[in-house]
């Protein structure tokens, strides 16, 4: 109590004051605090229904027998005993590892070319590299059939091997996973400090030595991240092996066969859980890596200006051209295949394959379903994600509640689409579940897709919100303006670029998704991506290509729209956004 002795007499202390200890303060909540907590509560209910309970239902199913009785790990034992299923596991690991190795090598070289060389046309190459994101994962499979299949153009290149099987899967997955690896590696390689390279050169290090001792270590966490992402992506993908896997079984197609083919839900649940393992491990590793990631770009770092090196730039160009040719060839082949009358016998160009109605496969209704679902996912998902991210970031107190919602938002990243879809069947199709009514409606597709792609959107929103001044809410409170008015008048406009990003991400992914929805669609809610899968199953490869290309064109159109809106946004808010 030193201050009482030294402070002058204008602090009056009475004996009574000295006697009683001041009471601990319990902060009172305002009506706004309650409103925020209510919002978080609603978010919790969403996660409960959309993520937690379905996963629980899956877990429960895996330890039950066909009559619903608890049988412990007997299903798992049966799984490890089943030679066929174990072979699938080995196949999946092989395919995932090989695809990962190839994709990482190509993506690293490509990313190096984009960030560390003076190669020409870097903008164009970057755009081409992101093309696979616009297509459903079954599209590369279809293109490969045209390229290397029984009537394929380049069939001879396979030296007698069949494209159906591991070769086809690996090539298809490399196409599919390439942009994901590229984006991570471009980010990792972008953060380079010019001074490190100058220092290395001043020490007379040779170029190869510099590469090994400065460049590679600088991006090692990016490499690790990319490796795990690609491995998990390939390990859990369903579209490519379904189209071009042939007799080569992988876990994702196993789940499908067990559930749809044999109605063996219990075994399907077990396989589904096996699929979740690499995702969880990858997720845990990524979190660890994030913590160790030292900021490479400190405030004093000088951004790297790559020098013109003829040999390196030439090599980079060659690599980028080769990869771009591969990507464009695959896409182009699918496009080509969709306009050929009867491959390979009748090569006249025709748009008849696009006349979905005439060919009796549900008509353009499937397309409209896809559009409708994508629009709803985009609208509802973005609102949900941004609002709950805001509540997590800006609520007063309630630490455990906010932490819980944040944790729930991270779960979907560790759950493969096919596993989530499976969980949804078990949860929503259960007879005693009042939410049963959602099954086979559009609502369940929308719910599933919003949940499936939630994490990346949530992280984008949180990042954007962290960059908004932390004291807006305090100012708002001092001016007696409720938080939701400030949310609408200030926070949303300031974060509009991020919100647009999230909306488009949701839209494109909803258009192209296959894995989860394959279990949840009904005849009224069939999506174009599913229709493509079914029509390919029936042998109609050309029409499947047409459907796939429709999705690609729609996604591309939406991305173009995003670019235009983005530019318009920037121009209108130029005055206060600055550059």
């Amino acid at each position, binding site marked *: *109590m*030193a*201050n*009482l002795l*030294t*402070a*002058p007499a*204008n*602090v*009056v*202390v009475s004996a009574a*004051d000295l006697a009683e*200890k*001041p*009471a*601990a*303060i*319990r*902060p*009172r*909540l*305002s009506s*706004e*605090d309650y409103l925020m907590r209510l919002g978080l509560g609603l978010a919790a209910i969403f996660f409960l229904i959309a993520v937690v309970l379905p996963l629980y239902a899956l877990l429960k199913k895996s330890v039950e027998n066909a009559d619903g009785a608890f049988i412990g790990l007997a299903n798992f034992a049966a799984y490890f005993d089943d030679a066929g299923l174990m072979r699938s596991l080995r196949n999946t690991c092989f395919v995932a590892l090989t695809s990962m190795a190839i994709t990482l090598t190509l993506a690293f070289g490509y990313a190096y070319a984009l960030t560390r060389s003076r190669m020409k046309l870097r903008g164009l190459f970057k755009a081409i590299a992101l093309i696979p994101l616009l297509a459903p994962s079954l599209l590369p499979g279809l293109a490969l059939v045209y390229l290397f299949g029984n009537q394929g153009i380049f069939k001879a290149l396979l030296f007698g091997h069949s494209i159906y099987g591991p070769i086809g899967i690996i090539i298809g997955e490399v196409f599919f996973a390439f942009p994901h690896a590229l984006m991570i590696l471009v980010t990792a390689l972008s953060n380079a400090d010019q001074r490190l390279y100058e220092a290395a050169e001043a020490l007379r290090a040779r170029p190869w030595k510099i590469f090994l001792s400065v460049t590679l270590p600088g991006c090692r966490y990016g490499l690790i991240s990319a490796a795990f992402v690609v491995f998990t992506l390939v390990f859990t993908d369903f579209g490519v092996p379904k189209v071009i896997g042939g007799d080569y079984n992988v876990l994702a197609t196993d789940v499908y066969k067990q559930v749809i083919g044999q109605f063996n839900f219990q075994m399907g649940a077990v396989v589904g859980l096996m699929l979740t393992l690499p995702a969880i491990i990858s997720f845990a590793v990524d979190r660890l890596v994030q913590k160790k990631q030292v900021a490479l770009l400190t405030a004093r770092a000088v951004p790297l200006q790559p020098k013109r090196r003829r040999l390196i730039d030439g090599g980079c160009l060659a690599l980028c051209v080769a990869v771009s040719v591969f990507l464009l060839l695959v896409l182009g082949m699918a496009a080509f295949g969709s306009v050929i009358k009867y491959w390979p016998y009748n090569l006249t160009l025709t748009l008849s394959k696009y006349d979905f109605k005439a060919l009796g496969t549900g008509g353009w209704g499937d397309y409209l379903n896809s559009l409708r679902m994508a629009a709803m996912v985009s609208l509802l998902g973005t609102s949900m994600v941004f609002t709950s991210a805001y509540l997590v970031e800006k609520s*007063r107190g309630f630490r455990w509640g906010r932490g819980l919602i944040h944790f729930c938002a991270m779960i979907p990243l560790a759950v493969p689409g096919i596993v989530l879809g499976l969980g949804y069947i078990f949860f929503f199709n259960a007879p005693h579940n009042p939410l049963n009514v959602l099954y086979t409606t559009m609502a369940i597709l929308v719910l599933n897709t919003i949940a499936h792609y939630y994490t990346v959107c949530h992280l984008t929103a949180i990042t954007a919100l962290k960059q908004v*001044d932390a*004291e*807006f809410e*305090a*100012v*708002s*409170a*001092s*001016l*007696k*303006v*409720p938080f939701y*008015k400030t949310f609408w*008048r*200030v926070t949303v*406009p*300031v974060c509009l670029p991020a919100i647009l990003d999230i909306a488009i991400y949701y839209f494109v992914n909803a258009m192209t998704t296959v894995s989860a929805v394959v279990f949840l669609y009904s005849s009224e809610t069939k999506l174009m991506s599913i229709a493509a899968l079914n029509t390919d199953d029936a042998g109609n490869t050309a029409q499947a290509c047409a459907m796939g290309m429709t999705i690609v064109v729609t996604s591309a159109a939406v991305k173009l729209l995003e670019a235009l809106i983005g530019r318009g946004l920037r121009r209108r*808010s130029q*005055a*206060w*956004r*600055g550059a």
Partner: protein
Amino acid sequence: MRAPYLRIDRVSKNFGSFQALKTISLDVYEGEFVCFLGPSGCGKTTLLRAIAGLDIQTSGRIEQGDRDISALPPSKRDFGIVFQSYALFPNLTVVDNIGYGLRNTGMRKADIRERIQSLLAMVGLKGQEKKFPPQLSGGQQQRVALARAIAMSPGLLLLDEPLSALDARVRLHLRGELKQLQRRLGVTTIMVTHDQEEALAIADRIVVMNDGNIEQVGTPQEIYRNPASPFVASFVGHMNSLAAEQVAGGRLRVGSVDLVVENGPNLPVGSRVKVCLRPEDVQVRGIQTSQLNSLQVRIEAMEFLGSFCRAELSATQDAAIRFKADFSVNAMRDLALDLGSEVSVALPKERLRVFAAEA
């Protein structure tokens, strides 16, 4: 004695095991301009935020006017606040920023417009109505933040290091304007700052804080001339500090020199003390050798500071006695003082402050 407007009663704030505020008690009177002054981490911003309700205290009471506001959320309190970052809404014009709270009160549009215009005139921003905050200079942004904070005529104005982000010249200018505005409005104001010169220039009373405690509360003159502790003595302005021993009532021994002091605490003979003197209090003109507390010194180093020099002196009879003195340019010229000169100085007994040496 009039009743205080803001009463802080034994407020403590803990962050986990760390005690940011240790039983703080303080009274602030209506219309006062009070500065919380102290080094980083002393708790001044924590105390401000507790008053605002942004980081409510762990225990203790806060009363504003007649209300006990201790547990109330910020939206139920009566204050305006300006943050170091200003927290201006970047997508709203100056007018919309200032009128942000007014729009919500249900005032008539015409009345709101009029009020905003008068606020703009008050802070000197006429003509900037349609601009956006990123288009304004730092000083202009600060004025918008201020206008926004006082728009609702709050009972308390809280300023969290509002001038720290500005460069020196703008800061000086705005400091004066801030004081004038506060005088004119008469709003009770609390400002947090780590700049002691700012606090001395602008405050009616200063609250010097250190390590979660209040070291001293007083007017700028009181704080400067009669610091209550070694910390306050050294934090506000420059202060020489010499280790000494109490040899008798009113007499200290510093090394081999004896000094007579007037206002020392009554400590037993033999106790270790600290004797402090401000550089500008060292007398150098017309020193007789018989004068009280006079000693012969050599000028070891000099810092030219424009209108005066700060010289580092060492006593010729005891080189361990070193302290700084401010010599005006006049004095240096008249007495021909330079590096290495030897001269007599006197340490006036009424200006020497004595503190018990910390254990």
